[in-house]
């Protein structure tokens, strides 16, 4: 309760930042005939953690995947409404999807390191984008990212070993390092702790709190406590609708909607 107070306390300051990173209006998503999201309007602010909660199958992942157009690779998936990143419509023809994904990084629910060396995993993004001028610079970026992801100490002696040989929690942090190595503006995390033990989870939550200084973060989570601990703003999804959104503190202490209240008190979901 005290921890929550502290984080949400900071949230109110950060919420003052004026222009949101993402401004989404009336987003609807269809998988073929089936509508998965209906009129979702939500803002994602810089230097804040926005958590998305809701029962399974309510469309959290779907919404998250809209933000870096990961839905493009799903056959028959259609997105309507407007999603603006810095005022630019990311679904407009002028938006390059590769560039978008460089600006909006993603950490997936299941750790998915490349079956390559630890170094290669992190270096891949900077390399394809040509971010590093030479080898030393690339090494510096890899070091930095691993440091920020809190993994450096554990792997610095075995950078050339396969990333798939790490433990689940280490793999997830490796994926975070990989995402931040390209210096995105926004990081999307889909249940990053769902497969982790409490210690690894705590480590990643700490990390998210640190990353907030540099990035806007959106995190999908099934853990109410986690949402309360790490996020400043929360959105509650239910059956493809964004039921309620607001400061995390307000959502958890004083929800306006009955469904939100039921969900956070564990009456359904």
């Amino acid at each position, binding site marked *: 309760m005290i921890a929550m107070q502290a984080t949400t306390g900071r949230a109110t300051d950060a919420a003052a930042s004026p222009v949101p990173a993402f401004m989404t209006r009336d987003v609807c998503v269809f998988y073929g005939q089936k509508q998965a999201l209906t009129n979702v309007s939500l803002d994602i602010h810089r230097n804040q953690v926005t958590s998305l909660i809701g029962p399974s199958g309510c469309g959290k992942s779907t919404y998250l995947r809209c933000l*870096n157009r*990961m839905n493009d*690779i799903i*056959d028959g998936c259609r997105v309507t409404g407007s999603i603006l990143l810095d005022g630019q419509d990311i679904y407009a023809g002028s938006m390059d999807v*590769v*560039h978008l*994904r*460089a600006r909006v*990084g*993603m950490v*997936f629910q*299941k750790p*998915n*390191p*490349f*079956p*390559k060396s630890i170094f290669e995993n992190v270096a*891949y*993004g900077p390399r*394809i*984008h040509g971010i590093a001028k030479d080898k030393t610079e690339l090494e510096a970026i890899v070091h930095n990212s691993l440091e920020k992801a809190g993994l450096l100490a554990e792997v610095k002696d075995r950078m050339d070993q*396969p990333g*798939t040989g790490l433990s689940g929690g280490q793999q997830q942090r490796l*994926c975070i390092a*990989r*995402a931040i*190595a*390209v210096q995105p503006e926004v990081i999307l995390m889909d249940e990053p702790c769902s497969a982790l033990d409490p210690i690894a989870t705590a480590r990643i939550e700490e990390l998210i709190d640190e990353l907030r200084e540099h990035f806007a973060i959106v995190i999908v989570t099934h853990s109410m406590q986690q949402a309360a601990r790490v996020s400043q703003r929360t959105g509650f999804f239910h059956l493809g609708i964004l039921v309620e959104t607001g400061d995390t503190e307000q959502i958890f202490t004083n929800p306006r909607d009955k469904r939100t209240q039921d969900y956070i008190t564990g009456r359904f979901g």
Partner: protein
Amino acid sequence: MSNSANGAALPGAGGLGSIFDARQQVSEAVSAGLKRRYARERRFRLYGMLATLFAVVVLGILLFTIIRTGLPAFTQTMIKLSVTLYPQEIDPKGDRDPQTLSSADYQRLVRDALDDYFPDVTSRNDRRELFAMISPGATYVIRSMVMADPSLIGKRIEIEVPLKDDIDQFAKGKIDREADQANRRVSDKQIGWYQRLVDRDLIVSRFNTTLFTAGDSRSPELAGIWGAVVGSFWTMTLTLLMSFPLAVGAAVYLEEFAPKNRWTDVIEVNINNLAAVPSIVFGLLGLAVFIGFFGVPRSSPMVGALVLTLMTLPIIIIASRAALKSVPPSIREAALGVGASKMQATLHHVLPLAMPGMLTGTILGMAHALGETAPLLMIGMVAFIVDIPSGPLNSATVMPVQIYLWSDAPERAFIERASAAIMVLLGFLTVMNLLAVALRKRFEKRW
């Protein structure tokens, strides 16, 4: 039994007793079924073992007969000749003109050498029979020696030359000495002469190098598989060069890039159909299109490779698509997620992971192609070709066609050589499969 009677009364009964009864009943049922389950499992294992045993035995018999027939082909019976290279026969003018040297009558020298061994054989017919015991290859041996070193002219040389295939078969014990003379290919007189040669230590058995260095020939003792091996090499190389990139390209496009709609479904069905088309149809197609329309030289490894490419393409495409499908989508998402383009994600991550599967499919396809005969018969690769092909546009034959030709020949010695060729072909296939395994191991280690 009494328990099941209790069980029947179960719904009516109440309390702890009935729960206990129910448990008892379940455990009874389980242990009763257990025996049957184990018996079933044992039977299943037995069937599996029998099936495996059957396959192994059949394969063993096959290999055994091939090896038993083919092994003698690796040796060749030779006769030691002492040939005098009379200058007046070879080079009457004495100017060592290669033209003269090459067209000299070396057969005469061979006959002279034989006459020396058998001064008692004088009648025309007998001498003809005697000379027939030596392979026409003897003259080539002498000629090439003289051409290589003209200073030999005038000297007496000791050489070993192959015996004719019938005598060779007799020497290997393949011809029944007791049979009626009219029913065997070696006459009584020849047997007598052969025996005299053996007694004088003039007959030796040598490793049959000709089999591995020569092209085809009308005389079995001069025939070799090298021409077919080289033909197969060209054909396979070209097939690989054409089919692998095409198939991988098609598989990657269909699996990673093509929209999933009715058209791609149609294409998919057609590719699967293509894999099941009888191979001779590809031969007919090759004859009509590649030879008839595009004018690719008949009988050449090039046209063979084009036909085999058509044939292996669907096999490799199907295997490659399966390999691509087995790459977890999370890898693609990971790559796209850090901003890789579709092509980068495919080239950097998906393709390397799918490569072992693709290579396996390719090698299976190539092994299939290496053993393919029917379509090549249609495009003239069945022609009798003596020369070793020096390029993909020369006339050539391939190993399975050579095997087909030899097994069809009346001479026993050719049948023997066909089996030897099968052994060599099996050797190649084994090497290819080992290569596939080794390659896969290497790839897997890298990840």
